């Protein structure tokens, strides 16, 4: 490596290692995070012969430092001299993979997996695979847990004898004495199954899966569920019934709610993995049971999947299954005792309307939507309102509007400002769907009421909402309905409301356009520059800066500038500051406009010249 010789004196390893040993943890951590720089200074050979042995020997440090080290080493291949030498990184990573702290160990395994791909097939068998074996037969559970994550990366690239050994090791770990290792094995079972030959999936993996799925600890059983889904995707359809279904059926009825929760949570994947026939015969009743489970957690997880489950049902029998089997359960969930269950359902139930079509929606789903719109829990109502677009497509929102209104009004006045905030955010969408007439009649007053809310976040959202409404309904609508009301607030005795006028003007000027801004808004802003509250005055300065781009340059020069100059000599320091800011900002826009103007003139000039030339 270039310059490596002269570096010897400059960067003796002792100095660098001192840095890695610094007494201050933070400094040590910083050094480790720049380990690649140190390695670069040392050159590839000394990194291999001096730095790595040092790192391997001194692995007893704060977990924070070890974590950084484990991460660094995953990117070290080039720094030790490329793939040819990548196995030099194995010893320090091996020690890191036996550390107690889970995050360190996981990171070490991640790095090992990464560098495993950089090993040649020979190196993999000579260096990597023995490491996996050592970890798999370690004394303390930590190394065995780490081993679980390494089998799948080396299995595809080794000889068949080594493959047999790897399978044997995995099998041993699946029946390990400590639940920690069994959990690790269970969580990697699916991944391992994917790299195995189909015959071994059938002969080995299935029995391991069955054993883990009936482990004495529910924490192991629940991990087997996920593995089961992966395994099911690998097997041909005709083997599913005999090999995985009995175990999965049993998991769906496990005595521990955690396992049932897991089944509910993975239900859509499971459904895709097993295909339409098994879905019809097995999964439908299982899903019904989960929707009726005695633990709310499980019901909520299942409720979340209702839409996806129905969508993925085989087309020929979809409607019948939904109508006869799923809908009755859904109906019950609408009046569940647990609010999480209800709100989980509310977040997906609207999606059913596209699946069931107009008539069924009106007859069966609409009553449920309406019931949920009246639910005592605001989150349920919000979830319904936020998904209105699905229903809109199918039956039009008019069907709902009568019930929608009271729900919206109630949410708009909810005690929790976060709830109010959430409903404001849906206003533009609702306005678009309900149309301008309905809006003016029923919702406009709400939108104006938010402008004087107690909470600033609501007032802010309300101004933003107005802007979006104007984008939808146009400037003329704005001039007739909202601008007068907004400007009226400029005379409010409460200075916070007067400021809201300014904030609204900031938001509205651009969408309303030059004419409305100059004619109607600007005079009000000018008038407010004489307000007795300093906060209002400096917000006038800010507003003038904001709306400047909308105004024409003549107006800026003759009207805005004098007002700002007056504010710049205000007695209040903040007013002065913002006025000056605005003047410099304003000027730059003026200059910009001027330049643009000149550019235009010049091009015109140029074009005319060109034309002349052509003529001559």
């Amino acid at each position, binding site marked *: 490596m270039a310059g490596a010789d002269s570096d010897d004196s400059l960067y003796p390893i002792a100095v660098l290692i001192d840095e890695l040993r610094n007494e201050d943890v933070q400094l040590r951590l910083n050094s480790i995070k720049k380990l690649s720089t140190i390695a*670069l200074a040392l050159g590839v050979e000394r990194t291999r012969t001096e730095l790595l042995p040092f790192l391997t020997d001194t692995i007893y440090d704060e977990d924070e430092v070890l974590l950084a080290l484990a991460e660094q080493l995953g990117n070290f291949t080039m720094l030790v001299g490329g793939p040819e030498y990548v196995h030099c990184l194995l010893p320090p990573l091996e020690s890191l993979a036996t550390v107690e702290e889970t995050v360190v160990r996981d990171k070490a395994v991640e790095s090992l997996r990464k560098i495993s791909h950089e090993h040649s097939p020979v190196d993999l068998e000579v260096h990597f695979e023995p490491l996996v074996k050592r970890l798999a037969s370690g004394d303390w559970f930590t190394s065995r847990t780490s081993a679980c994550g390494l089998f799948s990366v080396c299995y595809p690239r080794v000889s068949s004898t080594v493959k047999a050994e790897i399978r044997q090791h995995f099998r041993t770990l699946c029946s390990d004495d400590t639940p920690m290792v069994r959990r690790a094995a269970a969580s990697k079972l699916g991944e391992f199954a994917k790299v195995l030959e189909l015959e071994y999936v059938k002969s080995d993996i299935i029995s391991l899966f069955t054993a883990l799925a009936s482990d004495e600890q529910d924490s192991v059983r629940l991990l087997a569920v996920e593995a089961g889904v992966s395994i099911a995707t690998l097997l041909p359809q005709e083997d599913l019934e005999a090999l995985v279904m009995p175990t999965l059926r049993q998991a769906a009825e496990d005595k521990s709610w955690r396992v049932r929760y897991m089944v509910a949570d993975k239900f859509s994947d499971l459904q895709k993995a097993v295909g339409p026939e098994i879905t019809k015969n097995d999964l439908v009743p299982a899903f019904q049971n989960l929707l009726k489970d005695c633990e709310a957690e499980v019901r909520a*997880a299942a409720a979340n999947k209702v839409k996806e489950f129905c969508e993925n049902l085989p087309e020929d029998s979809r409607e019948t299954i939904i109508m006869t089997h799923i809908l009755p359960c859904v109906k019950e969930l609408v009046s569940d005792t647990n*609010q999480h269950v209800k*709100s989980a359902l509310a977040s997906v139930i609207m999606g059913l309307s596209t699946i069931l079509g107009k008539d069924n929606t009106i007859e069966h789903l609409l009553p449920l939507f309406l019931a949920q719109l009246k639910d005592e829990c*605001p989150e349920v109502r919000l979830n319904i309102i936020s998904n209105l677009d699905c229903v809109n497509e199918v039956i039009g929102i008019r069907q709902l509007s009568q019930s929608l209104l009271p729900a919206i009004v109630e949410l708009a006045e909810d005690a929790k*400002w976060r709830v109010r905030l959430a409903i404001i955010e849906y206003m533009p969408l609702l306005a678009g769907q309900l149309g301008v007439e309905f809006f003016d009649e029923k919702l406009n007053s709400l939108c104006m009421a938010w402008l004087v809310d107690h909470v600033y976040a609501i007032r802010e959202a309300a101004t933003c909402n107005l802007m979006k409404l104007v984008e939808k309904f146009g400037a003329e609508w704005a001039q007739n309905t909202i601008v007068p009301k907004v400007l009226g607030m400029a005379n409010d005795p409460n200075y916070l409301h007067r400021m809201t006028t300014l904030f609204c003007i900031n938001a509205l000027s651009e969408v309303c356009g030059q004419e409305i801004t100059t004619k109607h808004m600007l005079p009000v802003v000018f008038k407010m520059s004489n307000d007795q509250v300093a906060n209002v005055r400096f917000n006038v300065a800010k507003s003038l800066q904001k709306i400047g781009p909308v105004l024409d340059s003549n107006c800026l020069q003759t009207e805005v500038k004098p007002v700002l100059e007056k504010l710049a000599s205000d007695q209040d320091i903040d007013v002065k500051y913002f006025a000056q800011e605005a003047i410099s900002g304003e000027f730059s826009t003026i200059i910009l406009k001027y330049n643009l103007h000149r550019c235009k003139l010049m091009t015109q000039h140029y074009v005319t010249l060109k034309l002349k030339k052509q003529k001559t």
Partner: protein
Amino acid sequence: MLSASPAPALEMSAISASEKVDGFTRKSVRKAQRQRGCQGSSQFAASSSRPAAPEISALPQLKDASSTEQHELFMQKLQQCCVMFDFYDTVTDLKSKETKRATLSELVDYVSTNRGVLVDPVYPEISTMVSTNIFRTLPPSENPDFDPEEDEPTLEASWPHMQLVYEFFLRFLENPDFQPSTAKRYIDQKFVLQLLELFDSEDPREREFIKTVLHRIYGKFLGLRAFVRKQINNIFLRYIYETEHFNGVAELLEILGSIINGFALPLKAEHKQFLMKILIPLHTAKGLALFHAQLAYCVVQFIEKDPTLTEVVVRGLLKFWPKTCSQKEVMFLGEIEEILDVIEPTQFKKIQEPLFKQISKCVASPHFQVAERALYYWNNEYILSLIEENNAKILPIMFGNLYRISKEHWNPTIVALVYNVLKTLMEMNSKLFDELTASYKCDRQREKKKEQEREELWRKLDELRLQETSERGFDSGAGGLTILSNVNLRKRLWRGAT
């Protein structure tokens, strides 16, 4: 790994107008809301779909039966108590529930006052009755972010029966006629495993009972001891490294405290491993405050048993010393003081340097409680004598921070305490103290210079890296730099072209 509870939703239900302003529900309000749903039972969470429990009718009293009938009646009553009732539903089965309660209470009486009632055939019946009543999958917590320090626990709804079952089981184990050799066929590994899982119960009353039960089992079943210890280890490891959730850590540690007390000397490797691999890492847990007293007791027990463990323990604690949680730091300081109270002077010498470096940092902590707790060490006669004995080593470690703090700590109490400590140290070795005072400035400057040198070194290293990357296009995770050099390259090309 397991996120079994749905995401905490927006808080529900009507709130007073006063809350409209800030919107954040106060803890007290949330608590009041929660109180309503504070009774949970894992056995009958939703009863609608379950078949009704069979009605049970009262049998004659045991004390009225003749001695020949008594045994048969006892068995019948045990079987009767296997019928389970739904305590969620407060209206149905009232009569049967009362019958079962009265029967259980009679059984408690019967096994605690009578001799010769524990004949072989009753063992399986008792085991079945107890298992049926207490073993269950614990329900999900009502409150997904349950904070054991702040929140009211969810109480077990079926406690009126369950308490009596525990009571009965305990009297059974304590009965002078109890035969472990007969019972071990029923109270086996599987039984104990299920019992241990129940330590996660949110109901403190239940945990208290299980604690005593497990303690009795550990005492009477020698064959189960190693198994119990191993399973407790697994629970702790899962708690530390996987879930950070287990309600019964304090209770398990209490049992372990008395188990450690009984360990024979020399300590087995297994026990030492338990200390280093489990008890010490337990200090990293988020909920340390809930069981720190019990944990510190266990640690000190170990050191008292075998003083040679002092060094590894103290170094272990120093490794896990809290970085950001002052509350925990105060706990650690408390535990270290407990250790120092029993430390042997020869052991003290082995750890004094790293330990006092940490104490010196604590003394300089901007959090006054941490500083105060550390400074209190100087009120401890025994610690003071150890410091005095080793002042030549300790004084230089402590001096810098004490001197600095005496001038600039914000809290007057701390400044006053520091003055006292400085005074004590000066009296111990005035010559060394004067030297340290004299060299204080030089030392600081030397530190600064060293710091500058460090920065210089890193600057050079970074330059080298930049050079390498741009010259050789050598990229090892420094993609940003390569791009930068490419930009430079393009700039040069541009300049050359124009």
